[in-house]
């Protein structure tokens, strides 16, 4: 692949491959990515940290990446450098690495800056780069380079990882302009009043809080009366309340009448970076863990001391060597009297160590800083960052002897944790659920750690997905040649290649986890693993795995990312709460009347458009196919839908009256749809609710968030109009298996020739009342109508084998007209309501519910997860040993908290948590269980359920009760659920509701009934 790389010159800086960068574009935006595409990056040092940064920067897409590291590869480098192999030992690190880096992104050329072993980087070598990153370079050399970069407008980053410690330093120059310090969408909202005052008070519509902060800037549109505000220069905000803010002097403006929208304007922020020389004496710390408030100062001295130690001794302190450690403490104390000696001692002990998770955390973080430097997007870290995860050390610390290098690829990890712990890591058995972005990074770390590589060790990985183009931007184990293959298989093979010790120890599956695969992931499977790591992209599967881990008492590592934000959670049996104990607040849905009649934002028109997509191209063909293939479809399924008549009309229309035979007829159909959706329906709404309508309180009906629409008059020369016709006609043609067209001339010609019906307002609702008595059940009232309609349909047998093609929504295929239709329809509706239209890219994100994603965040979050994994492998069991993490690389922000303890409940005098359960063996009868609760706990059972089946309850009735109480449990479950219990099921999870002797409800654990 490397041979086909376009050279740097070939790249059109304005064209961004949206297919590849899709998810990342939603994080960074086009502007930032264009600036990145003009930046050349130099990374000095190609050990673990250097290659992690380079990997993330290559994936993100910059003009070029250059690597400098002429030193020969050593076996120890393989502890973290995932792009080096044993056969590379002795070659130049840079040379061995660049070819594999270059495979990551065809748009990013990767070069080796050359040099000879022993030759250090010099200032003359760094000309021509916009960003220079020094990894693990001594401070004297850092100063030499930074002195030059600070003066010459080159962005400088120095970073280092030592054992469980990491450091980073940023100097983006004396005047760095950051264009978007938060990365959040500009706020916007409707206003209801502006005072004329020297501190003009703006009041917003009290639907939602305005969300602004002091110092933010806003401008306005659509203000009536105080017209001066419309399109005004950004005005500085002073917040007065959740629905009010002031905007400075408005006393000379017109009188506010009504309406208006405020929009936040992001103002660039100038950041003054100090040089490294200045920063060494006057550091400005970026805090990564507020529980370790005094650690940055200690580590600031510690890392300088470490550099000094290297200069004096020509090597790093030896693993857990007391003499070297005391030398380092002395050096550190010279710089800073107050250092925490214990921390410095650990830094000395671990200095020669190198851990993949720490490299991942620092590499993800620094790579984002590189992107900030060249894109000006997001707020850079100012200015010194120190990070450690000392909590990951085992409870029983290794001895000096245990940490000695053995000449293996795990030496970097052994230096920190010792050989005994390495043995534990190697024989651990973990289940990785998902092999997407998080999964790939996880496997990379695990392969470097040697997780599961021992005789008893194993990694199970499952993912049902196959590889798509938009994955390649961050799921770095996949290449273009892997498109269409199973993710789990390709990822497993890729990491077994990175560390051949994993061969035979990493087993991939395609079966997704869920109730249907409990024969695969059942008792035996869970008995054979030590823990589960989720790498999932949906809440449902996360909740399911959580439930399974609670049942089987397995620790669970959970994580997720959203753009630059990420979080990690560790769930430990009998200790912490579980994943499902807390829920994220879901996004608030838009009320249906807003979508149907009163849109006021592009989100509303996109949601409408997405529904129309289903209503036009998915549901009708499905209904037709059901009619053709399911016996008695009209009599059975339709009858109970409550929508019988409407659905039947639709089937008649799609199968008989409006069935197209040529593509031209599809164009005609599309033209008529245009008329109906964007003209007649709007006219009908205005007929019902005229623009001058008033509410019951006499207010204008069309005011505030309700924008009065205007019908559109079709004009084939308007590209938005024509875009709708093109997309709708093609999708309609797809339904009927007709070949599509894209020539605009054809669409214009046909569309302009269509005679559209005049609008006649529908007045009064047609209610068909039969002579018969009112039907007893809903939906039955139109039976006369319905049978007339049904007569128009050909019998299914007369059309044997004939089927329509329902469209399956696929957002990532740019040629399928799906997003084109949704964009066109949404924009036409936006034009109806005078809402600013949105481009295809924006529409695609909202309609496709695309989660923004970037490799840097994933890399960091997965590093944090693996730092918790060390603790689980060690078997730690105290709450304070663990950390849940929250990060946002844009701000940047790190936050850690202790996991929340499992909530203690009580029945009688017994405490219990979600991890407890009652076990019943030998397939007891329901009565035996009920009696047991009465006899042993003096609790009255009020309801019994299994899964979603309600097996028994106090209001079930005497007959049913007498029938069910004596049933064996398995029999009872089959009786109520009306489904046989699959043979692999050996136990049932049962919930009961019980009350005590005072008739008060008592919470009790769930029941496991073995059958």
């Amino acid at each position, binding site marked *: 692949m490397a041979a086909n790389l376009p050279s740097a010159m070939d790249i059109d800086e304005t064209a961004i491959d949206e297919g590849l960068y899709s998810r990342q574009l939603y994080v960074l935006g086009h502007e930032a990515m264009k600036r990145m595409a003009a930046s050349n990056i130099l990374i000095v040092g190609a050990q673990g940290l250097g290659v992690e940064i380079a990997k993330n920067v290559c994936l993100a897409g910059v003009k070029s990446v250059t690597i400098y590291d002429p030193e020969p590869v050593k076996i120890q480098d393989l502890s973290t450098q995932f792009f080096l192999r044993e056969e590379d030992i002795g070659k130049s690190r840079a040379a061995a690495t660049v070819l594999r880096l270059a495979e990551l992104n065809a748009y990013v050329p990767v070069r080796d800056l050359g040099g000879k072993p022993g030759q250090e980087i010099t200032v003359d070598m760094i000309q021509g780069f916009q960003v220079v990153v020094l990894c693990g370079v001594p401070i004297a050399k850092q100063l030499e380079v930074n002195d030059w970069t600070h003066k010459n407008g080159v962005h400088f980053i120095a970073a280092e990882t030592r054992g469980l410690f990491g450091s980073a330093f940023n100097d983006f120059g004396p005047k760095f302009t950051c264009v978007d310090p938060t990365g959040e969408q500009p706020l916007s909202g409707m206003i209801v009043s502006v005072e004329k005052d020297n501190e003009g008070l703006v009041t917003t519509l009290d639907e939602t809080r305005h969300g602004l902060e002091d110092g933010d800037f806003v401008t306005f549109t659509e203000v009536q009366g105080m017209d001066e505000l419309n399109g005004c220069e950004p005005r500085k905000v002073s917040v007065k309340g959740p629905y009010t803010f002031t905007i400075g002097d408005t006393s000379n403006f017109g009188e506010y009448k009504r309406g208006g929208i405020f929009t936040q304007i992001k103002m660039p922020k100038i950041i003054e970076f100090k040089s490294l020389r200045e920063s060494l004496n006057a550091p400005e710390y970026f805090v990564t863990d507020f529980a370790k408030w005094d650690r940055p100062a200690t580590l600031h001295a510690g890392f300088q001391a470490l550099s000094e130690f290297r200069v004096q001794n020509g090597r790093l302190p030896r693993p857990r060597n007391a003499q070297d450690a005391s030398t380092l403490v002395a050096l550190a104390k010279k710089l800073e009297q107050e250092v925490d000696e214990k921390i410095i001692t650990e830094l000395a002990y671990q200095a020669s160590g190198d851990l993949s998770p720490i490299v991942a955390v620092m590499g993800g973080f620094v790579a984002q800083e590189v992107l900030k430097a060249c894109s000006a997007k997001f707020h850079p870290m100012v200015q010194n960052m120190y990070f450690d995860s000392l909590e990951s050390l085992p409870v029983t610390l290794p001895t000096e002897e245990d940490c000695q290098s053995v000449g293996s690829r795990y030496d970097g990890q052994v230096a920190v944790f010792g050989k005994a712990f390495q043995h534990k890591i190697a024989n651990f058995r973990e289940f990785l659920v998902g092999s997407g972005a998080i999964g790939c990074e996880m496997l990379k770390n695990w392969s470097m750690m040697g997780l599961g590589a021992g005789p008893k060790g194993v990694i199970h990985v499952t993912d049902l997905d196959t590889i798509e183009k938009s994955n390649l931007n961050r799921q770095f184990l996949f290449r273009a040649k892997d498109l269409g293959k199973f993710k789990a298989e390709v990822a497993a093979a890729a990491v077994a290649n990175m560390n051949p010790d994993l061969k035979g120890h990493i087993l991939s599956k395609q079966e997704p986890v869920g109730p249907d695969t409990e024969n695969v992931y059942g008792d035996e499977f869970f008995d054979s693993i030590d823990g589960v790591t989720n790498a999932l992209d949906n809440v449902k599967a996360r909740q399911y795995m959580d439930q399974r881990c609670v049942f089987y008492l397995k620790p669970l590592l959970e994580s997720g990312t959203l753009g630059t934000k990420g979080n990690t959670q560790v769930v430990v049996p009998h200790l912490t709460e579980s994943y499902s104990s807390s*829920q994220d607040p879901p996004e*608030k849905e838009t009320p249906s009347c807003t979508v149907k009649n009163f849109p006021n934002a592009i989100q509303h028109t996109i949601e409408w458009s997405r529904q129309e997509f289903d209503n036009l191209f998915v549901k009708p063909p499905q209904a037709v196919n059901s009619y053709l293939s399911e016996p008695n479809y009209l009599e059975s399924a339709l009858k109970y839908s409550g929508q019988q008549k409407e659905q039947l009309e639709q089937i008649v229309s799609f199968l008989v009256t409006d069935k197209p035979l040529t593509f031209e007829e599809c164009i005609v159909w599309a033209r008529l749809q245009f008329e109906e959706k964007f003209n007649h329906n709007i006219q009908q709404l205005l007929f019902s609710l005229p623009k001058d309508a008033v509410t019951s309180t006499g207010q204008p009906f069309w005011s505030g968030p309700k924008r009065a629409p205007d019908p559109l008059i079709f004009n084939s020369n308007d590209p938005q109009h024509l875009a709708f016709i093109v997309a709708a006609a093609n999708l309609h043609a797809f339904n009927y298996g007709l070949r599509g067209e894209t020539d605009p001339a054809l669409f214009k010609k046909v569309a302009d020739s269509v005679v559209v019906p005049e609008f006649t307002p529908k007045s009064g609702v047609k209610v068909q009342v039969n002579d018969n008595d009112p039907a007893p059940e809903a939906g039955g009232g139109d039976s006369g109508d319905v049978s007339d309609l049904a007569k128009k349909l050909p019998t299914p047998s007369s059309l044997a084998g004939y089927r329509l093609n329902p469209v399956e929504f696929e957002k990532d295929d740019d040629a399928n007209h799906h997003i084109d239709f949704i964009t066109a329809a949404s924009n036409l509706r936006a034009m109806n309501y005078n809402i600013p239209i949105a481009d295809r890219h924006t529409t695609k994100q909202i309609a496709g519910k695309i989660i923004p994603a970037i490799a840097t965040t994933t890399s960091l979050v997965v590093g944090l997860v693996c730092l918790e994994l060390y603790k689980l492998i060690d078997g730690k069991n105290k709450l304070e040993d663990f950390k849940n993490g929250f990060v946002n690389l844009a701000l940047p922000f790190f936050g850690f908290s202790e996991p929340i303890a499992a909530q203690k409940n009580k029945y009688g005098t017994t405490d219990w948590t979600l991890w407890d359960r009652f076990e019943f063996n030998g397939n007891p009868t329901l009565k035996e269980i009920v009696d047991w609760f009465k006899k042993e706990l003096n609790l009255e059972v009020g309801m019994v359920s299994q899964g979603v089946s*309600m*097996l028994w309850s106090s209001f079930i009735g005497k007959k049913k009760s007498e029938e069910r109480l004596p049933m064996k449990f398995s029999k009872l479950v089959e009786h109520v659920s009306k489904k046989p219990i699959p043979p692999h099921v050996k136990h049932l999870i049962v919930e009961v509701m019980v009350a005590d002797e005072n008739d*008060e409800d008592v919470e009790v654990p769930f029941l496991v009934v073995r059958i």
Partner: protein
Amino acid sequence: MSVRPAVLRRLMRELTELKTNPPEGIRVVTNEDNMLDVTGIIQGPEGTPYAGGYFKVKFNFTEEFPAAPPKCRLLTKIFHPNVSGAGEICVNTLKKDWKSSYGIGHILVTVKCLLIYPNPESALDEEAGKLLLENYESYCERAKLITSVHATPKVPPPEFATPSSSAAEASTTTPSSSAPTISTTIVHPPSLPTNPIVKALPSMTSPHPLQSSNGFSPVSATEKEKPQSKEKERHVSPSPLSTADSNVGEAVNVTTPGTTSAPAPAKAIKRAAGTTSATGVEKRKKALKRL
């Protein structure tokens, strides 16, 4: 459809409660082999064009429940400005004003209120909205017609085989100590297993004089009246339900029943107790007459 075990437990609790002590004019139909298959039935409130009808509300719980509201749809055809032809219901309780402490009972009470106080300002069925604004009588006429054709069965659903409503009228003025607590619970379904109200409930029901003995006929009269009178206390405007967009103009900021007291159950009890006065009932009767 899948929900977490803790949520299933909560549903079990609520369904039991709704089966044994349903709010006035509200019943639930459950399905033994699928607890998540829940249908509510709302009796068309007297004094509205929906009287005589029974309206089915279908619940669909997602894995995000109770953080996100269940999806609800009216299965019974109805002529109402806030219900679309497909049965979608436009009320903020089911969208942006949703709180995870709400449950099935709360939703059904809210929808019932919507039948009493339609909100033309956030019309889903613009035709019904227009009529309601312009010509109240023909709105009523049409709504009655649709009710009689689509919603009025020959015999009421078996779930409504309960004591007559005359008993209810009689007892509203003689509040019993147990009534306020029960009404509060109906409005705020238990969110936490430890909610003290939940524990208090069963003991409250049995000593009530009107409680039927078989355990199947649910509500006593006082309990039936409570949610209504309480709402009336706070919502004097003609459109008390915070449907979307309703916070423009005067009828701003009206919260759905119980939203303000949701976080503090103890307080709610007191407040509910305080509203057990004849004035609440009076106001409600007037409101109903207007309809």
